[in-house]
């Protein structure tokens, strides 16, 4: 076993006996009252004991922004780094000790604007980390400028006549970079959020979870049109692996692909036979359908929630560890004496 891989035994190492309280730090939470971040934090703290990690093996790494305060509130190891760089800090943390369960907490500005490069590369490398991207479509900590996910034309402090930037879709970025697990959830749906966090934790590979998160100060009701309980069932669609894609309060609507390969909504029972509904396959080696689903949005379509993609690839940290093990196997463990003499030498008497 490689020397950086540590096994931990200890007083609080018995993961089975941990409770929510063990994961709550003594720091006062300082988000604005009513912020969507609270529910994500509560879900994580409640869920952690069930995920089965030893507390000391969990590391939360964040960048800068409201969401990036998250690590201070988790009683695990944590690193609140600098703007946009959480994926690369996490890369170092994970590569130095692949046994750790490493979580990256980022936002739409932190992850897609200043840190876009790192997010892209951590996904294409397929490092075994869990990235949660809190998407509130606004800059909160700097008090209300438009973000890279803000809708075109959005009026904010820095765009009083409307933003001229087109928004990025994090799911499409993740699909293009070939992240191995890609999901989306909603801050107010604790049950679904729990399912997603559990699934991404179980996945060996790079997992990106976009969470629609409401900023009640600078971008209130950003997702209200489809997350409001009254309309959620009709305006969102749960992607469930191996099942036909259906939605609606009575499960009376579905999605199928038309002759052009484009999605269309089907009224089950009204539009004729429904045996051609799209059956979701998260492990589909072809990313095309996942990409098509990622383009669906309100009001033309219900907003997809759930796992867009889940594929198997060797993880970067595993490959790095294996390459070292192979080199050591082949060449023997390095000896400094040998390295110093690894050249043509001569003796002076």
């Amino acid at each position, binding site marked *: 076993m490689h020397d950086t891989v540590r096994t*931990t035994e200890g007083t609080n190492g018995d993961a089975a006996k941990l409770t929510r309280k063990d994961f709550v730090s003594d720091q006062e939470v300082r988000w604005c009252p009513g912020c969507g971040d609270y529910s994500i934090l509560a879900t994580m703290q409640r869920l952690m004991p069930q995920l089965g990690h030893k507390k000391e093996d969990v590391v939360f790494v964040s960048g800068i922004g409201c969401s990036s305060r998250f690590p201070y509130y988790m009683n695990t190891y944590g*690193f609140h780094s600098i703007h946009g760089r959480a994926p690369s800090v996490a890369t*170092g943390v994970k590569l130095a*000790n692949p046994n750790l369960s490493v979580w990256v907490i980022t936002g739409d500005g932190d992850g897609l604007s200043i840190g876009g490069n790192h997010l892209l*590369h951590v996904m294409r490398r397929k490092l075994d980390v869990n990235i949660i991207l809190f998407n509130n479509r606004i800059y909160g900590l700097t008090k209300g400028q438009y973000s890279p996910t803000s809708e075109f034309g959005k009026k904010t402090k820095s765009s009083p006549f409307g933003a001229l930037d087109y928004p990025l879709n994090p799911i499409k970025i993740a699909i293009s970079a070939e992240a191995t697990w890609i999901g989306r959830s909603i801050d107010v749906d604790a049950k679904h959020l729990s399912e997603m966090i559990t699934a991404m934790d179980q996945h060996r590979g790079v997992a990106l979870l976009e969470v629609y998160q409401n900023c009640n100060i600078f971008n209130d009701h950003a997702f209200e049109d489809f997350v409001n309980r009254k309309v959620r069932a009709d305006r969102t669609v749960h992607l469930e692996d191996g099942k036909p894609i259906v939605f609606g309060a009575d499960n009376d609507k579905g999605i199928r692909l038309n002759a052009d390969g484009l999605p269309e909504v089907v009224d089950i029972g009204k539009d004729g036979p429904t045996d051609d509904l799209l059956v979701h396959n998260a492990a589909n080696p072809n990313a095309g359908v996942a990409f098509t689903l990622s383009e669906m949005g309100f009001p033309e379509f219900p907003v997809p929630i759930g796992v867009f993609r889940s594929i198997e690839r060797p993880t970067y940290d595993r490959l790095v560890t294996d390459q070292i093990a192979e080199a050591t196997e082949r060449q023997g463990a*390095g000896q*400094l004496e040998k390295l110093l003499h690894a*050249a*043509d030498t001569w003796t*002076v008497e």
Partner: protein
Amino acid sequence: MSTTDAESTSTRPDPARTEVESVTIRFCGDSGDGMQLTGEQMTYTSALGGKDLATFPDYPAEIRAPAGSLPGVSAFQLQFSSFDIRTPGDAPSVLVAMNPAALKTNIEDLEEGGWLIVDEDAFTKTNLQKASYEKSPLEDGSLAAYRVVKLPITELTKNAVEGTGLSTKQSVRCKNFLTLGILYFLYDKDPEPTLQWLTKKFASKPELIEANTRALKAGYNYGRTIELFTSHYTMKRAKLEPGTYRRLSGNEAAAIGFVAASVLSGKPLFYGSYPITPASDILHFLARYKNYGVKTFQAEDEIAAVTASIGAAFSGALGLTGSSGPGVALKQEAIGLAVMTELPLVIANVQRAGPSTGMPTKTEQADLFQSIVGRNGECPVAVVAPATPGECFHYAIEAFRLAVEHMIPVFWLSDGYLANGSEPYRIPAIEDLPKINVHTRTDPEGFKPYARGENGQGPDSLTRPWAIPGTPGLEHRIGGIEKSDIDGNVCYDPMNHQHMTDLRQAKVDRIAENIPDAEVFGEEKGKVLVVGWGSTYGAITSAVEQLQNEGKSISAVHLRYLNPFPKNLGTLLSNFETVLVPELNNGQLLFFLRAKFLVPARGVNKVQGKPFRVGELRAVFEEALGA
């Protein structure tokens, strides 16, 4: 000369041998002419012959500039000597120019009366035009100050390798070995090591072994048989300290040194880097040392490289990042993070010339300001700088010793001249290498992430514990926001910020207790003191030594620790009437010396992308001595 073939083909007796003490040769040609390889082989052979030597490769930034053009000229200079030498020499006494462009860009440096060896076959109309010569300099009398040797090198090479099955183009490429053969004869070098090297290098291409061997031998015999050289040179063996030696360049020394730090500390090395001239070789070397547990991470950019290294340091590895000035500029915010989180990090900067992209393949020492004061806020770090290629090894270990023992980022400053230059290096015994005291916290009882004195009292009593993820009971959070001392929680209290700012400075200042005093080369009191740092060591010390031998009151101090300074520096400065500070910048060390010690030190500054020459420094020192 041990090759019997070469011996047997010659019937003439050896021309008279002249014993010389040192020779400076510069090979220059098109970047495709193999000049670096030629220089390296000459170096290797000289080293095996027991000569002290120093080298200076000078190559263009363009990988393949148009053949025959001025920007495409590549050069390699070496000085070998029977006495201790410290620089690759000032003016070459022998210049080998493979084409008109090489001649044009290098002839000014050749000493008057020096040997100029040219390939006359390359002085074609086209090549002359490419080098902007209206008339051939070989025929217009412009080279009258030199001893010009015109040889049909291309033609000789073609003849020598005929029948080996090589194409004309391939044949011509052997001309560097023919040239090398001539030089081997001229300087009494044994061609055997190069012949063996060829056999290894081209093991799978026997025709190339054959062709280059023939070219080398043909050159050697040509040197012997033609009567152009009235004498050739032989040299005594240099008086080097007893021991086992190898040739070592600065970048390779650095890579091995960082691995040594890993071995000595028992902590795995993590190198996060993004390719950049002239630092990339450190990445190339370290990427090969996987069986030492070294993890190299070629990041997507400079910022990812440094932040990954910081993450790895948090995770308990020796976090190392390396670059050159432009890359370090990008890393600075993250280095501030390492200062705030008090994690051990080493930043290797192989300096190059100029701001922005500047002159990537040329040398300069202009990143000292960047290292010491180049970040936002009060953000002190330690800075060390090796003085020779071999010292790159020792100070790589030293950088990590300080980083780990003081939980602080440390800059390690090299430059293009050290990185690519090489010298015979006496391999140290492992037991003579410094100890690195690592204290990682494991006891959860009373643990506080920013508690002090974890590593004991004395020099490191201000350090916080290295508490590594995976250790039960030490869960804690760190980050770039100001922290309260001891408990490490986010804290905006004004007096705490004052306290933490002072503490971070005190941590750096405290390092002065953990480093040796500065050594003086010469008397500890006197008229002139020359203070230098980094790669100017060779030129400064040589110039000072020459003047000392003439009885002049001049001494030198060469600083390896630039922040903090050694404790005795202030006293030393006050012991001399005049303090001179030669630097390849506009006065950066000078600035700090004047600010800190209030001494009227004077700068000796050069910013041309080239190292100091011994002669030019000597002239300035003489003036200061009033000679």
